[in-house]
């Protein structure tokens, strides 16, 4: 296994607060890596930097062996790095089907072409099938439940056939059944060769699903290892319980 | 050199007047994310109130601010409650632009029915007095306005930083949903905040009526300036808008006196565009925690 994503010495300050502090870690190809840490430990900030939403003050990011000079969300997405958001960001005023098509990373030629081509509908239809959302295809996304929105967002970022998917709390705020569903979909896609980097607060899920687990505190990595290693790490316990 | 210094004095004093108007505008934007296109019209309404009250009572226009401030507060709060509150939250930002523009038109229409379009001035007798200091002219009314705008800023600062209301406002600004969960009545806060923002026009209107002849249509010129000040200062940053207002006043005065008045506003617009290009948040629109 080689590193699909390498983060080196990443630092980001907001005013006086250092959100990410000289942080380095890597995500091995084919892994489901978890990124955990207490609230405010810099996980989401790290996500935002990796996916080009924020500019780091210093540090470098390498994806698929190439250093990303000017991180830009759209270019990264097209080159195989997808992400979801904590709050399940979907496009409420277009249909569920179109939510998938719009995320298919179409070319310039495609941009001027039909809103939904037959090929689009087939591909998006398959994805909906996989996520059991076919019945909702023509609903406005705004008509979906929160859990369904999370599924839809996950499904949509797979439309570009990504190598690496960053999931920001995929199961936050959804019911236990939906957590299982989500887990099943992650596993299925993992089996199909997708690498995952997951920020998650549900420790049971992390323990079941992920290896390795990276722990951040105050914007820096404090531990890395298998779930059980991390669980027994005293520094991690301190971070969660103390200070 | 004399001319440059005189222009600096004139510009800062004028800037002070605009700062007074813009502080309320900024407050409203800070609290509700509403760009209030009616702020200029409210200033003119206050000018007319002051004008009429002065005609009736003969009291000093600056004293009348005590009477007009609550009136403007009620007008503002009512506008928010009846016209802005019912808007759907997802497109409230866009719609409020149009609603406040309609309010501006309505106020203009109402004023032109009551007062006609004749230009008026508030003339207590000292409106054009100036002190001569080392050969420089300092206009009294503008100087008072300058002091008034500083006082207003201090009051706003205290209100926002030191009172319970202020904490609710700041909570609402930062996270409306969370504030609501914590028991802040964000609807009331919004109405109160809008009223507060509009109530600053009472003082601004009195000053405006003293320094410039006005009619119901005068708000168009005001609003374009207020908007640029608020944007330049950083939307929602009251301190920033004061500095922006001073920049505009001084810049316009210098360009007018030394170069040509036809390019005065243009220069300011260029500055605005450059600032937005380099710093889309405006000069002071950094990650400010409160409205100040």
């Amino acid at each position, binding site marked *: 296994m080689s590193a699909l994503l390498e983060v080196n010495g990443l630092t980001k300050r907001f005013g006086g607060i250092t959100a990410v502090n000289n942080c380095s870690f890597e995500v091995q190809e084919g892994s489901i890596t978890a990124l955990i840490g207490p609230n405010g430990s810099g996980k989401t900030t790290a996500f935002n930097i990796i996916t080009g939403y924020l500019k780091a003050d210093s540090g470098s990011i390498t994806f698929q062996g190439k250093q990303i000079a000017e991180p830009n969300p759209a270019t990264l997405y097209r080159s195989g790095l997808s992400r979801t958001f904590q709050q399940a960001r979907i496009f409420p005023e277009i249909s569920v089907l179109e939510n998938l098509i719009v995320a298919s990373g179409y070319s310039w030629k495609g941009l001027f072409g039909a809103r939904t081509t037959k090929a689009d509908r087939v591909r998006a239809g398959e994805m909906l099938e996989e996520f059991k959302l076919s019945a909702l295809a023509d609903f406005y996304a705004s008509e979906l439940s929160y859990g369904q929105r999370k599924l839809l967002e996950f499904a949509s970022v797979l439309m570009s056939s990504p190598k690496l998917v960053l999931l920001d709390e995929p199961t936050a705020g959804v019911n236990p059944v939906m957590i299982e569903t989500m887990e099943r979909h992650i596993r299925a896609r993992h089996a199909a060769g997708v690498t995952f980097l997951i920020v998650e607060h549900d420790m049971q899920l992390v323990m079941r699903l992920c290896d390795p687990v990276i722990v951040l505190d105050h914007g820096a990595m404090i531990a890395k290892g298998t779930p059980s290693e991390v669980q027994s790490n005293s520094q991690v316990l301190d971070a969660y319980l103390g200070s | 050199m004399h*001319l440059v210094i*005189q222009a600096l004095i004139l510009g800062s004093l004028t800037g002070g007047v605009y700062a007074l108007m813009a502080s309320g505008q900024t407050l409203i934007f800070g609290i509700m994310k509403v760009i209030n296109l009616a702020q200029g019209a409210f200033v003119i309404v206050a000018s007319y109130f002051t004008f009429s009250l002065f005609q009736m009572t003969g009291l000093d226009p600056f004293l009348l601010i005590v009477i007009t401030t609550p009136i403007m507060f009620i007008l503002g709060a009512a506008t928010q409650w009846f016209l802005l509150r019912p808007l759907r939250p997802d497109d409230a930002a866009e719609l409020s632009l149009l609603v406040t523009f309609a309010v501006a038109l309505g106020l203009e229409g109402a004023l032109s029915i009551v007062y*006609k*379009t004749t*230009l008026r001035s508030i003339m207590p007798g000292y409106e054009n*007095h100036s002190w001569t200091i080392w050969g420089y*002219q300092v206009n009294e009314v503008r100087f008072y306005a300058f002091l008034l705008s500083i006082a207003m800023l201090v009051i706003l600062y205290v209100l926002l930083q030191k009172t319970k209301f202020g904490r609710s406002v700041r909570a609402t600004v930062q996270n409306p949903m969370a504030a609501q969960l914590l028991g802040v009545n964000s609807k009331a806060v919004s109405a109160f905040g809008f009223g507060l923002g509009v109530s600053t026009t009472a003082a601004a209107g009195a000053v405006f009526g003293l*320094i410039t002849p006005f009619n119901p249509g005068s708000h168009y010129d005001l609003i374009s300036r207020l908007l640029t000040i608020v944007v330049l200062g950083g939307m929602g940053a009251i301190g920033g808008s004061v500095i922006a207002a001073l920049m505009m006043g001084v810049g316009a*005065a210098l360009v007018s006196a030394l170069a040509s008045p*036809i390019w005065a506003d243009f220069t300011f617009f260029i500055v605005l565009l450059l600032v937005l290009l380099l710093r889309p948040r405006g000069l002071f629109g950094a990650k400010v925690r409160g409205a100040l």
Partner: protein
Amino acid sequence: MKLSTSKFLKRRSTVAAAVALTLVSTSLISTLGNAASAAAKPLTIGVSLSLTGDFADSGTAAQKGYKLWVSDVNKRGGILGRKVTMKVVNDASSPDQVVTNYTNLITQTKVDIVMGPFSSLLTIPASRVAKRYGYSFIEPAGGGPKVFLEKNPNLFFVQPAATTKGGDVFADYILSLPAASRPKTAAYVKLDDPFAAPLADNIKARFEAAGIKTVYDQTYPSETADMTPVISGVAAKSPDVLVGGTQTADAFAQVKAMIQLKFNPKWLYLSNGASSPLEFPKAIGTKNTEGVFTSSDWYPQSTATGTPAFIKSYLAMYGGNAELIDSTSAEAYSAGTLLEQVAKKTGKIDNATIIKTLHTGSWPTLVGNLSWNAYGEPQGSYLLTQWIGGTLKTVFPAKIAQHAPVAPKPAWVG
């Protein structure tokens, strides 16, 4: 408020009366089947005025003048025995609406005659519509150079001269002074609009030719609310004479700035705004008006034919006092009297006759004896007036002056 409502009602009732009268007369005609009845058909005149929007002030003043004339002419038995009715529509100071209004007046309402709009900026688009349909276009407002460059033979401007020549009489006066007591230096502060700036430029050309040095010359845009920076620039040059090419609010703002900056030129001429007997003292205080020069075509003390009668019937209709009558009302009234005179002279009232007839001879009106060149530019001149003792007085030309010019200008009262 009260005033405007009652005025509104009054207007409604006149319209209602006119409508009723039209109905009665047409039904009479149709029942009698009288062929000669064409003469009894009312003469309808269409006018679009800016009753709302930026130009609403002069628009409403013009409306008063037009309405007064209609009432007066009907008292005199109408034009050639035809009762005169006037359709006044609002263009809300919009150029689109003014085109619509004149198109509607001519092709929908089918009025017999149209007269000009207020403001001046709407004159050219309106005059083009009138010309297209062969209508005469007597207009009391648009007197800028571009109006006459339109080369529209149907157009007649009802003021003594092109607006931009309004200041020539001030130049005449200054240059009539003995060389020793003439100003040596001059400043020009001009509003950027089609009339004010060229007017000041005309004065400047005359002054420079006579050796009066230009020490300051700037144009300011119409949204300039604060004139103090500009006036501080003027004051720094301390010119003997200040020529303000002004419109309305800016004239007041200039004066306020001069008072605040304690700058008092020996001669102060303001082209417009200062000529308003009502607004100028209200805006700057009566005491501060003393000694300000301006030019006028009509004012209550004017000696032009018909002025006393005009004032009398104006006061009977609108109340108030003579000092408060806007010259715009007199200009609009004069436009109407021209029609009367054409009808009287030729016995006909149609557009071709109006155009042909007005191109010859001289026509007495409230704003002086008018005659026009081929494209409607009047060939007379304005009067120089000055604020003396709280009212406007003619001070030049000397032969019709009511008072000698007061110079140097007294100090500001503050």
